[in-house]
């Protein structure tokens, strides 16, 4: 064994010991198979790197030029004929041919699109999602609704759904008195309910005030006589005639769906449409969560 190899092995040993010190200091558990394998790899790298270096350094010390020169040379600088090993060359050509087959038939380039993959993934996921949540209980829906709310709704309605001091709808209550008066004055035709447009000025003055106060107060106590005008469309209980017109008492599924679909511009500002951004189950979940925000 010559001095060079001994030096190389010494270097390798230093590197391995250094690695072991680091392993020790970081409290890495070598009985874990992954860690043990990694350590083994580190040892192999140290030994191979210095071993191979030692071999070639030793060879350089004694090597002389030999072999047959190739015909071509550049300003007198030539190269030896040093043919590729046949096995290597044939497998290289083989992989080229295989690659052509792979592009054309194995995994055809022209049959793939990233968007196609997105479509398939989303379709499969949505199907699985709807299937999995067919009979989900209310508690799960509420939890799901909260996570949707935090991503999609919270930027405007606030993380607690309070509307950020009047910047958006406050889900603690259905409508404020001012909002009701505004809607009575201006009418509304935005949510696309089967009942159609609500014309402006259905009530005015004291009647409007009474209606607004009663609805904003949670529809408690005696119904004002003027509410008869509203009851024609919104139902005697104000709950919207089973989805024919907006529910004035609470945020039901129909109301959430219609608002998400059409958006709404009211006294506070404008909410854009969130069409196609949620699946039916997610809409149900969101409704469940919004209802839980009631003061």
């Amino acid at each position, binding site marked *: 064994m010559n001095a060079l190899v001994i030096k190389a092995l010494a270097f390798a040993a230093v590197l391995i010991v250094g690695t072991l010190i680091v392993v020790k200091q970081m409290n890495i558990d070598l009985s874990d198979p992954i860690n043990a394998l990694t350590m083994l790899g580190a040892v192999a790298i140290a030994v191979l790197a210095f071993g191979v270096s030692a071999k070639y350094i030793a060879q350089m010390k004694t090597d002389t030029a030999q072999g047959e020169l*190739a*015909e*071509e040379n550049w300003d007198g600088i030539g190269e030896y*004929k040093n*043919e*590729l090993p046949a096995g290597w*060359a044939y497998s290289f050509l083989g992989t080229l041919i295989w690659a052509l087959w792979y592009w054309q038939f194995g995994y055809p*380039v022209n049959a793939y699109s*990233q*968007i196609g*993959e*997105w479509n398939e*993934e*989303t379709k499969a*996921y949505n199907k699985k999602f709807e299937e999995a949540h067919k009979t989900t209980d209310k508690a799960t829906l509420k939890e799901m609704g909260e996570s949707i709310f935090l*991503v*999609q709704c919270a*930027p*405007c309605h*606030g*993380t607690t759904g309070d509307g*950020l001091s009047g*910047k*958006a709808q406050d889900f603690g209550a259905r409508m404020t008195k001012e909002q009701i008066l505004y809607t009575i004055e201006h009418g509304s035709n935005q949510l696309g309910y089967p009942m159609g447009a609500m014309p402006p000025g259905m009530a005015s003055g004291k009647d409007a005030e009474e209606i607004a106060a009663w609805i904003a107060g949670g529809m408690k106590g005696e119904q004002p006589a003027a509410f008869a005008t509203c009851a024609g469309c919104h139902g005697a209980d104000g709950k919207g005639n089973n989805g024919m017109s907006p529910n004035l008492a609470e945020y039901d599924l129909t109301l959430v769906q219609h608002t998400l679909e059409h958006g709404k511009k009211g006294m*506070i*500002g*404008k*909410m*854009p*449409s*969130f069409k196609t*951004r949620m699946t039916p189950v997610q809409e149900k979940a969101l409704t469940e969560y919004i209802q839980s925000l009631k003061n």
Partner: protein
Amino acid sequence: MFHWLEKNPFLFSVGVFLVIAFAGIIEILPNFAEASRPVAGLRPYTVLELAGKEVYKKDNCIACHSQLIRPFKAETDRYGQYSLSGEYAYDRPFLWGSKRTGPDLHRVGDYRTTDWHENHMWDPTSVVPGSIMPAYKHQFKNIADLETAYAEAVTVKNVFNVPYGDDIKPGKEAWEAYKPKVLAEAKKIAADMKNKDVKDAVARGEVPEIVAMIAYLNALGSSRYEAKK
């Protein structure tokens, strides 16, 4: 085996170039064919929106916000439909960005509105608790450079055939004739805003940067080609 190749340096160079360029070519060439084609019904940015785009560039929104939604479910769930190359046909330059310190904005017009942007640009934490975005209050005071935006519209119309109407043409007079249209658009935005100074400025015929900015942000998204519905 390959000595014949080394004896022909030129052929060898061409071969090397082709091999190295191959992956790039199959990715890039199909896009060259499509890139200049706008998606059906896409309208170019209005002059006010162009002025807002200049503000977007000037205040360096691109440093923290991207404008490119990749076709991954996690992104489409949050930001809406993935971006199409044809949507950028009138973006010169496109503002894809490469870093998301804040969220992607390519479809922000689909899910945020004028009043939200007004609150947010004045004080981001008032609507997004914990936001690290700085306030952009100067946009409420600085006046937008509508003339440069108009000149940009004229230029892209003449050089790249961007389909603007006949009323967009060179010259000071043409701009004076066109200006009321821009102001009318600005008034529509200001009507949905609450800041009194901004409303007053627009009423006077001056357009603060925030108005142009909001016009631009509202135009980001599908509204530029689905508006006819």
